């Protein structure tokens, strides 16, 4: 039986959507009708621009796919964004047109259609992010299934090596740039303004735009399969030169896709930073912020400082390919290893970009479900900042066998190992938070506990790889594949699941099915370990990574790994079924099913359109479970305070 979930507030009449356009004017208003004709137009424009310029310069041939791909992947997405209405407000403002009344017609969702518009409501954007990223998670997961099918037996069975190289390259790129990073951005988008007691993000229009860059990035990367002569980019997500320069044209789709994903990341991170710094409710000092907010503060700083480096590294490859520059061409004074330095200067911090928000989610969930204050709150926050700073000093540990100058290896090893200290502080503090708690094993808590244990395994295998002598043996083998999946699957993905289950009632107003949630957890937990743990062994024994074919002695373990990975893939179906069915017809959840103290749980589920009827007054720590009379915030002004006083007096 479906129960209607009521939104707590209707739109104010002044915020009503504009009257629908009629006739031909419907084609010029922001929206999908305008997209329908602007996209082919911008496609044609980009093509003409390239061919015209080449004709004017006397280049031959006129139809040069590499150059066209660059033009298309810049111009068509811009046309799409403009047509959808991503720039409308700024265009009006810049062109000096009579300022439109500052309405909120693009804010909030009344019907499902509002999720397909440029929407400025952070709650809508958060859900847009999550649904989109889960789509790409499914696509990238399917690619992993194809890979495991090929790897089940030694020799070549289903795909050729070019397809296989494409599969793992696109799998990793989508998982990193279109799933883990933006899924955390989506959860943060939904939760952070609520946790801070803010009505929205600091820059709602920028927020809307940053979401719409994502599907662009994902579609560019996926459509690389359609590029003639060679198909998808197949040099790994690391895209090392000179292989990347030598690759067929599909490789450009990685270089250009990353730009859009990176731009989206940077915009969101700036938005988070300004929101966290300037939009905290009265009384919300930094030392009263929930740890998820701290985590996103650290993450956003990393994103803003590091992401330009990956953008640069891919632009340089694009220039080498299209403009025939020689950044990475040793015959013309370029430097092959320089690419790896630039790339990892982003991509190591990216590991923390993919992990710190998960730390934040784990802190929220463990505290609430153990019914205890988080242990060592200040050290927890400070260790996030320590990881942020140290995270910039370890990049070359990915390059211990690369042939860079050998002295760098020792300092990089030391900093790498030292990062274990703040990370260890966090793990020990989570364990101490469980101590003398009243632990409830709802699905979010199961995933959070699964995260703590699995992430420790990933962290410890990181110690092996951090030690230069062991890394010389283990680098570029399946040991590394096992390590990154313990960190990014056992770490990031487990916390993403924890976060989705935890805030699902807040986002939808409905409960997910607890039994299915638990089935999902146990299938994932067992499937994950049987899939990835044996990879440590095959790697140390001598199986390199990124191979479609391998020595026959690894056949049996690879078969076990493949079978387990299919189970792991199937467990995702339980999750999707649970989410879809519960979203449509789950039991109403009420405002605070977890009896949590943070601010997002003090408003209705889903929250009112501007989150709070009155800005809350924060009066204490967000984790005061078991402390009599302690409060995190006073909502609805005097009324709550009066009630409180009456209670005490009674």
């Amino acid at each position: 039986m479906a129960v209607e979930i009521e939104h707590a507030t209707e739109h104010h009449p002044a915020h009503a959507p504009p009257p629908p356009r009629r006739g031909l004017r419907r084609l010029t208003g922001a929206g999908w009708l305008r997209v329908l004709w602007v996209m082919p137009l911008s496609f044609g424009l980009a093509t003409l621009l390239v061919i015209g310029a080449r004709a004017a310069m006397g280049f031959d041939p006129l139809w040069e796919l590499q150059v066209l791909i660059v033009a298309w992947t810049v111009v068509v997405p811009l046309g799409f964004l403009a047509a959808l209405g991503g720039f409308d407000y700024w265009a009006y403002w810049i062109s000096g047109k009579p300022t439109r009344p500052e309405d909120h017609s693009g804010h909030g969702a009344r019907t499902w259609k509002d999720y397909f518009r440029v929407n400025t409501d952070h709650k809508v954007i958060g859900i847009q992010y999550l649904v989109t990223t889960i789509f790409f998670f499914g696509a990238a997961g399917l690619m992993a299934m194809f890979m495991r099918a090929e790897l089940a037996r030694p020799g070549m069975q289903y795909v050729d090596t070019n397809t296989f190289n494409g599969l793992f390259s696109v799998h990793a790129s989508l998982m990193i740039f279109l799933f883990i990073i933006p899924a955390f951005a989506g959860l943060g988008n939904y939760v952070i303004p609520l946790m801070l007691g803010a009505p929205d993000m600091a820059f709602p229009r920028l927020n809307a735009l940053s979401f719409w860059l994502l599907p662009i990035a994902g579609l560019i990367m996926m459509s690389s399969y359609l590029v003639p002569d060679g198909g998808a980019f197949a040099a790994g997500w690391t895209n090392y030169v000179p292989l990347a320069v030598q690759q067929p044209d599909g490789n450009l789709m990685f270089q250009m896709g990353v730009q859009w994903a990176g731009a989206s990341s940077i915009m969101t991170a700036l938005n988070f930073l300004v929101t966290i710094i300037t939009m905290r409710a009265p009384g919300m000092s930094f030392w009263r912020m929930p740890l998820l907010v701290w985590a996103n503060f650290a993450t956003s700083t990393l994103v803003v400082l590091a992401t330009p480096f990956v953008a640069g590294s891919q632009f340089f490859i694009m220039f080498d390919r299209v403009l025939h520059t020689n950044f990475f061409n040793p015959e013309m004074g370029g430097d092959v290893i320089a690419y790896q330095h630039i790339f990892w200067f982003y991509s190591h911090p990216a590991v923390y970009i993919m992990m710190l928000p998960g730390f934040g989610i784990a802190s929220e969930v463990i505290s609430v479900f153990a019914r205890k204050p988080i242990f060592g709150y200040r050290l927890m926050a400070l260790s996030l900042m320590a990881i942020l700073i140290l995270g910039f000093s370890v990049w070359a540990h990915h390059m211990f066998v690369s042939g860079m100058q050998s002295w760098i290896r020792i300092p990089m090893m030391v900093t790498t190992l030292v990062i274990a200290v703040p990370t260890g502080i966090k793990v020990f503090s989570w364990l101490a938070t469980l101590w003398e708690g009243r632990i409830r094993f709802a699905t979010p808590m199961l995933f959070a506990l699964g995260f703590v244990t699995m992430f420790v395994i990933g962290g410890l295998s990181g110690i092996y790889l951090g030690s230069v002598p062991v890394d010389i043996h283990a680098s570029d083998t399946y040991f590394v594949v096992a390590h990154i999946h313990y960190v990014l699957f056992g770490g990031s993905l487990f916390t993403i699941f924890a976060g989705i289950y935890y805030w699902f009632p807040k986002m939808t107003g409905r409960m997910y099915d607890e039994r299915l949630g638990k089935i999902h957890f146990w299938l994932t937990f067992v499937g994950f370990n049987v899939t990835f743990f044996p990879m440590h062994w095959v790697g140390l024994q001598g199986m390199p990574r990124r191979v479609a074919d391998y020595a026959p002695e690894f056949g049996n373990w690879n078969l076990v790994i493949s079978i387990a990975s299919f189970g792991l893939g199937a467990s995702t179906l339980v999750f999707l079924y649970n989410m879809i069915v519960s979203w449509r017809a789950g039991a109403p959840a009420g405002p605070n099913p977890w009896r949590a103290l943070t601010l997002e749980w003090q408003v209705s589920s889903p929250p009112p359109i501007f989150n709070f009827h009155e800005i809350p007054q924060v009066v204490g720590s967000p984790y005061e479970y078991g402390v009599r009379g302690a409060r995190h915030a006073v909502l609805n002004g005097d009324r709550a305070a009066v009630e409180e006083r009456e209670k005490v007096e009674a």
Partner: protein
Amino acid sequence: MRKRSIIQMTLVGVVVGLALAAVAFFIPWLPDAASEQADIIDSVYWVVTVICVAIFALVAGVAVYAVWKFRAAPDDMDDGSPIHGHTGLEIVWTLVPTVLVTFIAVYSGVALAQAEDLPDDHRVVEVTGEQFAWTFTYPDVELENGEPLASGELVLPVGEPVEFLITSKDVIHSFWVPEWRMKQDAVRGVTTRTVVEPSKVGTFEVICTELCGLGHAVMRSRARVLSAGDFSAWVEEQRRLAAEGGSVQGEALFSAQCASCHVLEEAGSQGQVGPNLDESLEGAEEDFVRESIVEPNATIAEGFQPDVMPQNYGELFTDEQIDGLVEYLLEATGGGGR
């Protein structure tokens, strides 16, 4: 009360630790150690393993104990104890890991210096990677034609330290023999180096571990470690074959360059990467054999991919060598009207 819980928790930790130790020590995690460097690296591996097993036992012990001991009954709506922190404990779990990682760093640094230590009296072997083959050149072994000895398989005497000078002709490759533990990327435009002192006689695989294109998975070669006497004999044999020319030289070239990828009954080779030459060259003409060597993409046998076999044998080998190889293959497969 407090004492009892600590004892219980320690028990859980010890059980987990013992189980882990059994997994860590009774399963052979590392391949045979066949170089001095392998012994050094393995000692670091074991130091790290002991520390990691202890840490994971601690974490798992506390987690399992807490989950079991502090679980709430379904109708229990109470909160836990309002413990906010414990400065002493926090200092301990900051300092102890700091000491442990410092120890690992120092131990690793010393081990690295030992592994890469190179006595003045050592052999040099130049390693060249290309899509998708390795060439090993011995600059101190000069052939009759003035060229240094070059081979597609790596042959070394046991117990003699070797400095590998490594480079690449195209993309990045990585030179690795798992039993030696040492690995080093081959980078175009750069000469990188690594040191290995083989300590066991035997045959090992040379594996490329850096993604280098379509044939990455099959970019493998052989490393044979011989006794000093056998090695000298091998060098002399190479000298003799190079001097002799014709199909004798072709046979040597085949076993060095082709055998790891192709089946050929005459040579006793078992490589599965490329087509079986007994079948695909059966009754073939001389021109076809030559073309298949210098321009392998011209004809691709059914079930195989283009671009996997190196494209540059025409430049890599002298005309004389190719003539010899063609002659040898025609003899071996009964082609060319023989």
